[in-house]
């Protein structure tokens, strides 16, 4: 049973203007991908809700939230050269963060085995007090913080092609969160070097596997098997949350990795094994800007998680990056001390 949260076009008022790649049509494509997977009654649609200020303040300080709300209500504008907010962006961002919380709550209530949150704007670049990289509120961080506040141990796997600098920084020194990222390097936002391994309070609990342009799915599969799996076993998470960007697909216009829909399916089945039991895995849409690739990748990912036979593209292999994975494996082989900067 997959719980599908968010993605109500009627509620999406995050207007980024013509030509911006982080657009509302992405949600329609993701939902179409779910339909393509032919999961039938195994898909349960849940309504999102708005995150409350108290819930957001587990991650974002009140002055930031108030300034962002006021900025949007005043009509918005560019927050940085990449990031736009409009009058409706604040409410849409509340719904995206709230959808993440609703997904976790429904899983806690035993309503499903896995949740997929198809909402925007994405979140993993958002710092505690700064919007950037198309992101206003850090949705996955808000969900993770809601869980750690109740004593849970949360593993965040971020397979978006860009490093999730916001999520890393927010949990840099938090021993209750293991943050893992595979991403293209060099690329925006410039963070996520292999030697960035966590703060003094959480040594080794940040795992970065930066891979070169052209890397294929086998490289990331090896990263999860050889680098991440041993760390996950030591950490023993009670929940696994996924920053599921699909811009590592070879067709994506914002980056140069060479994954296919089949690769995302294979990553998903590996990540599922990190969760202690069904009902403790939630995926949150981050990037993914080629609509057809996004559609196929979302469909293949959810199909894999439910054991359904939908795999529109085979897995890929043959690209560079084996040495990058080996470098990360050596860094994290036996547990590491704190290192790098958030």
């Amino acid at each position, binding site marked *: 049973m997959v719980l599908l949260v968010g993605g109500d076009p009627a509620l999406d008022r995050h207007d980024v203007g013509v030509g*911006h*790649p982080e657009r509302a049509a992405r949600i329609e494509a993701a939902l179409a991908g779910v339909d393509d997977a032919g999961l039938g009654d195994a898909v349960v649609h849940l309504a999102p809700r708005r995150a409350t200020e108290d819930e957001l303040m587990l991650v974002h300080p009140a*002055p*930031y939230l108030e*300034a*962002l709300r*006021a*900025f949007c209500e*005043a009509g918005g*504008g*560019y*927050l*940085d*050269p*990449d990031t736009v907010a409009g009058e409706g962006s604040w409410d849409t961002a509340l719904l995206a963060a709230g959808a993440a919380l609703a997904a976790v709550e429904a899983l806690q209530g035993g309503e499903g085995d896995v949740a997929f949150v198809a909402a925007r704007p994405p979140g993993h670049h958002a710092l505690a*007090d*700064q*919007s*950037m*990289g*198309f992101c206003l509120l850090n949705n996955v961080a808000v969900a993770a913080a809601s869980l750690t506040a109740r004593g849970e141990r949360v593993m965040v796997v971020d397979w978006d092609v*860009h490093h999730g*600098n916001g999520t890393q920084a927010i949990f840099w020194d938090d021993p209750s969160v293991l943050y893992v990222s595979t991403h*293209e390097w*060099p*690329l*925006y*936002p*410039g*963070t996520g070097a292999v030697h960035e391994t966590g703060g003094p309070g959480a040594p080794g609990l940040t795992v970065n596997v930066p891979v070169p*342009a052209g890397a294929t799915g086998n490289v990331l599969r090896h990263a999860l098997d050889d680098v991440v799996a041993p760390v996950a076993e030591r950490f023993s998470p009670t929940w696994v949350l996924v920053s599921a960007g699909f811009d590592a697909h070879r067709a994506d*216009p*914002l*980056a*140069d990795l060479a994954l296919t829909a089949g690769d995302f399916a294979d990553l998903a089945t590996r990540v599922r094994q990190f969760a202690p039991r069904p009902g403790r895995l939630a995926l949150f849409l981050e990037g993914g800007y080629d609509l057809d690739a996004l559609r196929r990748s979302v469909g293949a990912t959810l199909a894999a998680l439910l054991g359904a036979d939908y795999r529109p593209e085979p897995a890929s292999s043959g690209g560079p990056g084996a040495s990058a994975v080996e470098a990360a494996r050596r860094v994290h082989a036996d547990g590491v001390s704190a290192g790098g900067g958030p």
Partner: protein
Amino acid sequence: MTGGQLRIVVAVDDSEGAARAVRFVARLAPSLGAEVVAVHALGLLAHLGGETAVPAQAHRDEVRALLERWAGPLADAGVPYRCEVVDGNPVQALLSAAADEGADVIVVGKRAAIGVPGLQLGSTSQQLVQHADIPVVVVPG
């Protein structure tokens, strides 16, 4: 100050404001005996242009070539300089580059304000002034 020689980081892009900053540094650096690092920050949308996208890594190479052109006044003035392409939000990328380079001062052109104060917004120059722990020179238009 690194090795006794003043090191200046100047932010460069295709704007007139950045061109003014480079010309200012080209006039100033020789008398100070300074070396210069010209830094350009690549954002998420950097390589999306018009109808088509240039692959990100190919765009990186294109920008390196452009950087040499943008830094032309430094070469013309005989100033020792390097060009660096960094990834990220312009403010964070410039602050990070300045720290990595051991810079003594950041020079940036004044640009139109983006956003509002209080949200860590404002123009790149405003944010640099607010957050840098070394002097920032803002070259007006």
